[in-house]
């Protein structure tokens, strides 16, 4: 495994986050707090806003209300609250549904570029390839990778440039059982190193984590009393 340095003591929190997509409130008044070594699993039915929350925390979306931030060290005051702050994005890894891979590059080139983009050199690239069992494919063009191999290469970015906060959107999608276990072990390792993980997943993951069910943060009343939303009313009551 990699010799990652333990991340300094950090905490990551969100306050009363409300997110609107296309005029519809997806979730409202959502708060959470994580500190070094903790993970949060996002649950909820399709469309309950798991991906929106992750995209919001990655800075792609703006929250309609509320904010989020991180604290360095146990005692210091909050350094930042809000979104799209330059120094904030340098703490975050986001792995979404899209793999962000270019078919013309080899696996090693892909990870070297990814590390350089995040301001790291390439010393962890080989570790990252081996960690996701891609060592034998290092010099093969991504063009020839299977779906699962592409997913693994996308996840290898997490190792190639160490960052404390991992935001993972359905990370086990397209992975076979062995690869999913590999990922689970990497996530455990990351938590042991003092990292933090927020992951949206349908599967049970064998990691020690708190669960946040987005069903609980559905808006009390929708702006239109469309019957499609009735199920949410009874379940959150």
């Amino acid at each position, binding site marked *: 495994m990699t010799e990652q340095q333990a991340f300094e003591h950090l905490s990551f929190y969100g306050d009363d986050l409300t997110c609107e997509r296309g005029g519809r409130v997806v979730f409202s008044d959502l708060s959470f707090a994580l500190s070094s070594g903790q993970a949060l699993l996002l649950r909820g039915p399709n469309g309950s806003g798991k991906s929106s929350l992750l995209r919001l925390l990655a800075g792609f979306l703006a929250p309609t209300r509320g904010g989020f931030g991180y604290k360095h060290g146990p005692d210091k005051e909050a350094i930042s609250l809000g979104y799209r702050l330059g120094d904030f994005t340098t703490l*975050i890894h*986001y792995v979404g549904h899209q793999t962000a891979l270019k078919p013309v*590059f080899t696996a090693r080139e892909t990870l070297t570029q990814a590390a350089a*983009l995040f301001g790291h050199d390439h010393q962890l690239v080989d570790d990252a390839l081996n960690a996701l069992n891609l060592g034998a494919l290092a010099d093969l063009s991504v063009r020839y990778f299977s779906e699962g191999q592409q997913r693994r290469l996308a996840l290898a970015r997490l190792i190639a440039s160490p960052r404390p906060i991992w935001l993972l959107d359905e990370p086990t999608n397209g992975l076979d059982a062995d690869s999913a276990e590999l990922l689970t072990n990497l996530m455990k390792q990351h938590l042991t190193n003092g990292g933090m993980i927020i992951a949206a997943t349908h599967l049970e993951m064998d990691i020690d984590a708190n669960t946040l069910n987005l069903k609980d943060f559905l808006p009390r009343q929708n702006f239109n009393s469309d019957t499609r939303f009735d199920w949410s009313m009874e379940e959150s009551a």
Partner: protein
Amino acid sequence: MSRSFFALLKRDLQLGWRQGNTSVMVVAFFIMAISLFPFGVGPEMTVLGRISAGVLWVALLFSAMLSLDRLFQADFEDGSLEQLTLSPTPLSAIVFAKCVAHWINTALPLIIATPIMSVLLNLPSNALPTMIIAMLIGSPALSFIGAVGAGLTVAIRRGGVLVSLLVLPLYIPSLIFGVSAVDGAINNIASGPSLLILAAISLFSMVIGPLAATAAIRLALE
């Protein structure tokens, strides 16, 4: 910061080369477009000589615009753009790097091909050095202004035509002063002032272009 800047520049240059030789296709289009003019206006040497500067510049504008719609779109579609926003380098600097790569991949090969094409159009040989200098100074504006159009249409699937409509009117100042610099050299009038204005347009677009394109990309990611 400079590490991610140069890494991205290198990546985009390699991408341009490996994904079907962008430069070769752009130069081929440039040559084809210019070759059509002698057929259209007739092989009269004096007529060709008189329109040569304008034809070369217009062909440069159209050729540089060819690959513009894919400047950010490919990265948007495969999720790379999201990764780019998480870099410690500000997104505007990353957009700047992509514009530089676009210039090297398209405008630079066209400028290199210009001496040969100018012979075909009977451009007076004493005007050729000015033509090359004007293109070198003026063409960065094409990539940097173009980035704004590319950013605005990033989420539109068939945005190519829309990019042209957005960007071509903004290319007119570069065209006017690019041609007038060359006309100055042909008629032995000082072309310095035109070159200075070309430089001003390029410098202005280098500042405004990446900032505006960044704002457009942020909107598209929402």
